């Protein structure tokens, strides 16, 4: 099967039509290389021999003066056919490439963010800003200065167990020529290596597949250099986003660009893929692991790493597109259903002409440079998709905004409480707090003081809500009853608050009240509003909420309304200001306390009851959701 050498060439566009019967699995997974290519292979070997000599000569000549000054030459070696050829060369050159990673320029990032928000957002609130704040925050977050190198402290890390679990499942990744003993040693080294990199930034979230990247580094570079390169890649390279953001807002967003490339090169295949709502999950591991998870051959993997270490951060996306284009005939011969297409593309053929594919990726990158791809091309693509979507018949008209509000209020309480969201929410809350700190300290509140202030806050929130759920009037046949549903839960809310105060250790009953951080709670409320606005896109991109994205948006409106109202009520000073004390917040404890208290008050039961109550108040549309919530509350 020929590789594409130039997208859009007539030769490729007119390649085999598929009229024969479609099958459910693709046939290229066990393809043998074409025998006819042999003379070509010989020629290639000869060329590689020459290149090997050239690299050796170059390194010998410039090693003494330091290779950092020759980054262009090194990148050229890495990207051109054959890559860096030998692992000995790689061990010397990879650290230099990693210390000089190609960076995405600021304009590019900004343009991308604004394109994404303008064209994909369904909300009035999402703006370019929404994509950026986490990014900016991270830049300012200093990387932890204390170096956690001793094994015992690494084992305490929250991700240790998961990493270990994944490292245990890497057997298939070791080249066959590695001895059993050596393999065991490498696996033993791998877990602490990964965790040490994760520990450098408390905001890093490990993902499965990051271990594949580090294993590749370890195999080629050995322990010390792998750590050095791993750190560079996690702080400056593409993996940084994967470790810091949700996968939806990082890797899946990048993978959308794969579709943009496909559409421009081969509209037919893009249409087939989009037509079955294939999505990008089949390619998820490709950028996440720089192909080290799905490629079956060690030499192919290191060849990819040569390319990516020397290229723009989204080079893996170009290679992903090249792989799909190369497999076009297999893809088109598969039955047009999502599972079968997913299954076909999810499995990488054993034999892949990796050098040609890398050549294709480079060609595509020149042909559609990242800046244009993320800007104009993406914009055009989104328009095209939008237009195609609007042609599809819609069964029913969109619901009223008001309707959305109520459903989401109920559902979100349930969903936000789910574990994963909770971590996100407490994290954001802690950041907001940190931003609102006064210099100096203040005495810690006594528990009875905190309770009074807590009750006051609930009272304020409740007095604010009527002004905010104006919209409910239009949707429920009995809005007063609906209001009653929420008021009925006030008692539970207060119990919950008391429980949290007790469990999170925020107050003291100690006669000698210790001095603690001093926060400006008015600013907390203001910053909270701003932060909620800004992270809106990120929160909504979680796919739990995606299916009810419109609704989730509405609930955010509701929450924002209540929060800004509360901010106004406290303009003259909060309860804590009047008491002259502050509670203490510690993220881990707060999260634990919240979870424990939710369990104790049996939140699922209350969410279910709230749903039933709203249904009885005339929101008949809830009758599909309430049974699910009710079912969730059975223990």
């Amino acid at each position: 099967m020929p590789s594409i050498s130039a997208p859009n060439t007539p030769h490729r566009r007119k390649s085999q039509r598929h009229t024969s019967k479609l099958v459910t699995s693709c046939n290229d997974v066990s393809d043998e290389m074409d025998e006819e290519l042999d003379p070509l292979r010989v020629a290639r070997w000869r060329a590689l021999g020459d290149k090997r000599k050239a690299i050796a000569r170059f390194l010998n000549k410039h090693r003494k003066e330091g290779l950092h000054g020759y980054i262009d030459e090194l990148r050229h070696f890495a990207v051109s056919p054959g890559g860096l050829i030998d692992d000995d060369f790689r061990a010397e050159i990879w650290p230099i490439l990693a210390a000089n990673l190609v960076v995405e320029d600021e304009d590019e990032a900004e343009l991308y963010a604004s394109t994404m928000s303008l064209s994909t957002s369904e909300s009035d609130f999402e703006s370019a800003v929404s994509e950026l704040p986490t990014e900016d925050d991270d830049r300012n977050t200093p990387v932890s200065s204390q170096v956690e190198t001793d094994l015992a402290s690494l084992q305490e890390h929250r991700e240790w167990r998961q990493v270990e679990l994944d490292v245990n499942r890497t057997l298939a990744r070791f080249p066959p020529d590695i001895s059993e003993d050596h393999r065991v040693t490498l696996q033993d080294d791998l877990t602490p290596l990964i965790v040490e990199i994760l520990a450098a930034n408390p905001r890093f979230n490990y993902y499965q597949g990051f271990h594949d990247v580090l294993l590749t580094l370890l195999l080629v570079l050995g322990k010390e250099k792998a750590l050095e390169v791993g750190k560079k890649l996690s702080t400056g390279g593409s993996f940084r986003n994967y470790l810091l953001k949700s996968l939806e807002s990082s890797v899946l967003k990048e993978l959308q660009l794969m579709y943009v490339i496909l559409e421009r090169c081969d509209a037919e295949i893009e249409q087939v893929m989009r037509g079955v709502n294939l999505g990008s999950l089949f390619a998820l591991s490709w950028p996440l692991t720089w192909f080290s998870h799905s490629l079956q051959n060690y030499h192919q993997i290191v060849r990819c790493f040569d390319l990516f270490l020397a290229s723009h951060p989204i080079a893996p996306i170009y290679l992903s597109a090249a792989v799909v284009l190369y497999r076009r005939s297999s893809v088109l011969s598969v039955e047009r259903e999502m599972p079968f297409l997913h299954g076909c593309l999810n499995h990488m053929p054993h034999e892949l002409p990796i050098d040609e594919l890398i050549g294709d990726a480079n060609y595509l990158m020149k042909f559609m440079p990242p800046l244009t791809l993320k800007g104009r091309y993406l914009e055009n693509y989104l328009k095209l998709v939008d237009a195609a979507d609007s042609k599809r018949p819609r069964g029913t008209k969109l619901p009223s905004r008001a309707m959305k509000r109520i459903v989401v209020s109920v559902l979100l309480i349930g969903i936000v409480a789910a574990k994963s969201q909770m971590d996100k929410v407490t994290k954001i809350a802690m950041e907001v707090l940190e931003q609102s700190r006064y210099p100096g300290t203040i005495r810690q509140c006594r528990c009875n003081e905190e309770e009074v202030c807590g009750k006051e806050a609930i009272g304020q929130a409740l007095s604010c809500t009527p002004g905010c759920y104006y919209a409910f009037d239009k949707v429920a046949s009995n809005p007063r009853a609906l209001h009653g549903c929420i008021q009925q839960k006030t008692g539970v809310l207060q119990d919950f608050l008391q429980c949290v105060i007790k469990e999170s250790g925020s107050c003291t009953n100690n006669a000698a009240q210790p001095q603690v951080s001093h926060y400006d709670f008015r600013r907390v409320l203001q910053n909270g509003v701003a932060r909620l606005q800004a992270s809106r896109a990120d929160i909504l991109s979680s796919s739990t909420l995606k299916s009810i994205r419109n609704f989730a948006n509405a609930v955010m409106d509701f929450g924002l309304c209540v929060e800004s109202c509360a901010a106004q009520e406290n303009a003259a000073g909060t309860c804590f200001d009047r008491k002259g004390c502050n509670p203490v917040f510690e993220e881990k404890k707060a999260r634990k306390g919240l979870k424990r208290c939710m369990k104790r008050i049996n939140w699922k039961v209350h969410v279910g009851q709230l749903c039933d109550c709203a249904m009885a108040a005339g929101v008949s549309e809830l009758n599909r959701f309430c049974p699910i919530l009710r079912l969730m509350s059975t223990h």
Partner: protein
Amino acid sequence: MSSAPHKKALLKVIILGDSGVGKTSLMNQFVDQRFSNQHKVTIGADFIMKDMLVDGRLVTMQIWDTAGQERFQSLGVAFYRGADCCVLAYDVTNSTSFKNLDPWRDEFLIQASPRDPEHFPFVLLGNKVDLAQDRAVSRKKAEAWCQTKTKMPYFEVSAKEAVNIDLAFQTIARAALARESQDTQDFPDFPAQVLLDCGNAKSSSFCSCQ
């Protein structure tokens, strides 16, 4: 012929559970009758098909294996829709994986939002019973949990030693088949907002309203 009451049924089954409980191994043991420690971590999702006989009827099982790490959980939901049975798996030597069954079940119910959720078939598998000495969750505890979940069927299995695998998947297939034949409109393909627009329709069949 066209009504073909016995045409081959395609049953979609989803396996959910924490990372490392053995979802991929369970699936491989059922499909290929072998256990290997060479398989890689599942990133994203993958499926295997297998034909089998259920009470004399030939069915095709399409079994979806999803990533267990929490970070990937939300991505796998694209595959939940249309499921005929949801298999929850935990590791009997790991009590956290047992505690997380509730969230997995909740997530499935929310995301797939099957009609008549009270009767949607779940099956619980407690894997790694070959490691009896490391056991952290008793059979009794697991059975008690199942009792509270509309009597969910429970099997203690070992993907490694091929204990109870066939029996469990027979039950899974039977439950899926019963579900599939009972209602073809289980997961009507609607975006959530369409459902909610059925405003004043008195009928519970939300697809009929305009």
